[in-house]
């Protein structure tokens, strides 16, 4: 066997020891946040230290296991705190932006993939270059446009518009790449039977591209769900916060509600972490493929 030679050289227990140490490093912060969430308190200490702590006391304060279990943080963050409302805001914004963004991207990507027209290359190139625009540079004008001109500050629709449009260039590149791989013979056959481009797009290309559309939509959703800076800049009113802004609100500035933060973080993270673990192999190929083309 190919690897047998190397296996003899490095005993597996060393590899396991290394991997376990690394796993502790990666999992510890996650366990920490779970512990804080389950502690039922707002403190960011796992255990209260006595006045003159021994090493054992300190070790207890590091061990990610709550001194007592309580679900009160989860319950009150969803009921007493406006966190349910923030989650709803996030969900509306992320879903709205995904639907609008993917719908626009699909049609555009189809045209870029199938039609030859003046400006095609220029359009794709400018979409690519737009990925290099630093967020801060466009954030100021966007703030002026959305808040001062359109009066959409602290509204969900303002955020939907921003997220949807900013996701278009990436989505178009992803979808165009996939549309290019769909054989043209299918469409040519449909043309012979008298179908127009609209019908071909709707009943042949879109159904075939379902996997790519699903992946693009999920990326787009995750971006909207996790976005922080723009939401923090556009959302001034507390009940219009999205979940990221709200979580930061719990522990930013003078607030120190670590229990709410921890419980909220877990609720927010579970869906995206599961989605992510499911999607990761597409993510890598999508990202590296995109940058190789650039």
């Amino acid at each position, binding site marked *: 066997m190919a690897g047998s030679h190397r296996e003899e050289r490095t005993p*597996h227990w060393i590899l396991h020891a290394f991997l376990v140490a690394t796993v502790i490093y990666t999992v510890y912060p996650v366990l920490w946040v779970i512990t804080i969430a389950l502690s039922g308190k707002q403190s960011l200490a796992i255990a209260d230290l006595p006045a003159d702590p021994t090493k054992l006391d300190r070790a207890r304060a590091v061990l990610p296991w709550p001194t007592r279990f309580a679900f009160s943080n989860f319950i009150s963050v969803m009921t007493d705190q406006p966190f349910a409302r923030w989650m709803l805001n996030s969900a509306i914004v992320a879903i709205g932006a995904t639907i609008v963004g993917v719908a*626009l991207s699909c049609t555009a990507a189809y045209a870029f993939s199938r039609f030859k027209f003046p400006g095609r290359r220029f359009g794709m190139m400018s979409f690519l270059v737009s990925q290099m625009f*630093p967020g801060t540079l466009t*954030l100021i004008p966007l703030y002026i*446009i959305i808040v001062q001109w359109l009066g959409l500050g602290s509204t969900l629709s303002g955020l939907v518009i921003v997220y949807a449009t900013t996701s278009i260039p990436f989505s178009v590149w992803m979808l165009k790449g996939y549309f290019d791989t769909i054989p043209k013979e299918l469409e040519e056959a449909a043309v012979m039977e008298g179908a127009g481009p609209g019908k071909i*797009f709707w009943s042949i290309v879109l159904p075939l591209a379902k996997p790519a559309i699903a992946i693009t939509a999920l990326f787009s959703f995750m971006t909207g769900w996790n976005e*922080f800076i723009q939401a923090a800049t556009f959302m001034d009113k507390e009940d219009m916060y999205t979940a990221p802004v709200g979580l930061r609100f719990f522990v930013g500035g003078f607030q120190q509600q670590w229990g709410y933060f921890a419980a909220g973080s877990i609720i*927010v993270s579970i869906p*995206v972490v599961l989605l992510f673990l499911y999607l*990761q192999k597409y993510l890598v190929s999508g990202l590296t493929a995109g940058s190789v083309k650039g």
Partner: protein
Amino acid sequence: MNERPPASRTRFGVGLLLGLVVALGGGWALLRGARAQLEDDWITRRAIVAANALGALVGQAPDDAAVRKAVTAWQETHPPGTRVRVIRGTTLEASTEPADTGEKAAPRRLAREEKPLYDQAQRLRAGVDTNREGGAPKPELEVEREGGARRVAVPLEADGKVTGMVHVLVPADASTGRRSPLQAVLLLFGAMLLYVLGAWLLPPRAALLAVASTALFCLAAAFFVGGELRALGLAERDGQRALAGTVAAEVDRTRTLTGAATLDGGAWDTDLTRKPRGLITGAGAIDREKGEAEAQEIRRRALRSLMALGALGFVLLVVVGFGGANRVGRALVSNRQAYAYIAPAIIGTTLLVFFPFFYGIALSFTDSNIYNTNLPLSELWVGLRNYGTILGDFGVVRRAADGHWVFNYLNFYWTFLFTVIWTITNVVWGVSFGLLLALVLNTKGLALRPIYRVLLILPWAMPNYITALIWKGMFHRQFGVVNQVLAIFGFEPLSWFDRPFTSFLTALATNGWLSFPFMMVVSLGALQSIPADLYEAARVDGASRWQQFRAITLPSLKPALVPAVILSVVWTFNMFNIIYLVTAGEPGGSTEILITQAYKYAFQRYQYGYAAAYATIIFAILLVYGTIQNRVTRATEAL
């Protein structure tokens, strides 16, 4: 179908028509808005004169009864809609509001729902105090619009101290007439008539027609601009005269009410910081020089906008005339399906991706900040000043009096250096640790591999703002886990965010935690695609493990790792969330990276123009990096 392009006669005719419609029609609409604005400003200015006059009158009153008498007398000499309120502390001293009668008649305490009035008085007092101390100028009077009427609030001063506020509602006065579009329409028809005549007489040669239509365009535009600017000047003069009239009337009234001999009515015509504008002299006449300067400024502003419109109209004329529009039109028609498909996406990104980008670049050449966002960018133009200030300041370190080196953490080069260090350390860590883990995980026959893989990928899956806040909590001085661990090993607890180096370490720990899985996954994918027989063949040739790694593993990893490194450099360079949420630049902005520094300039110091210049520099750096990277990659691929 025989689609011949239209003759140049028609093309230049249509071009001239469109160009003139844009230039003249747009100009007319623009000037209409400008004049409405001008008139609006005059109304405000006259209201301010009245309010200042009343403020002076009330300020002279020796006691409360005299205040009420003065207010009543002043009200009687003014038009019926006028309303006055005098507020001192929490007391309504005098009022002519119809609501303030009977039980609510002055003097009385302000009611709870009248708190905004109290707040406004406090604001004005704070403004006056700030301006006396010589800070950034703050408004000392406030003007609100109520239809055509104005509510003006001025501070009430006695013996040089602000004691309260006078609040006046000045009713709207009759509006002057609007300028009709007649001139523009006549010029348009005249020019077109001349063109039709000329085109009919001249031989249909494109050059000739181009010259003729350009000449007609310029002629019509010149007539239009001349006429409109003259009218604007006249309107401005009327406004100045009306203002002088108001001042004279107020002086007369005050004189009758107080019997004062000399009054400087000109000092009542002030801006929002209560600085006299100097248009009206003490004698109540218009200062000719100042008046001319004000009119000049207004004409200059109008002229600039008109020139831009004229240029646009001319471009239209040329494009249509020489057939450009025709070609574009034909391309549009023959590819209409493709354009229809991309139109929504293009419109969306143009408005909210590309326009903001170019607007941001335009903003970087201005002095835009929170105090002047209502002004057009052309008014705030400062050229390359922002870039000069950012890039021209090399004062990163200086020696303090006691011999210590003092760093200026707000300096661009410090932040740039920090960003570079930040990027390099993170990417080096990410690549080496990620690659190491990938090599370990790629060991054949290792137990529990899928479980390790999922657990090690977890940091990448977590939303990074949550990661950042978790690590910030773990580095807490008093309760943070990291300090507890240090204590177990007998170290003193550290204030992590008090020194640049330790603060940098917290951000590095956080970003290192969340960035290595990406490299690990990329390397693992590449490793698994290396055919096993390559190693077999190498071993047969007697290559050592290190030689195998150098000769087989690394070259096979390169196609996957190079784009991943490029990507992760850009990501780390712009890793806003980690820096912003973990160190927040502490201490003193020393651990700010370029992108967070630009954000702070924009949204904490509100220097939009400066921040835009900063962000443009970031873009330039990334562009240069991208180009060099591209070259290098291509060159190495060619080898």
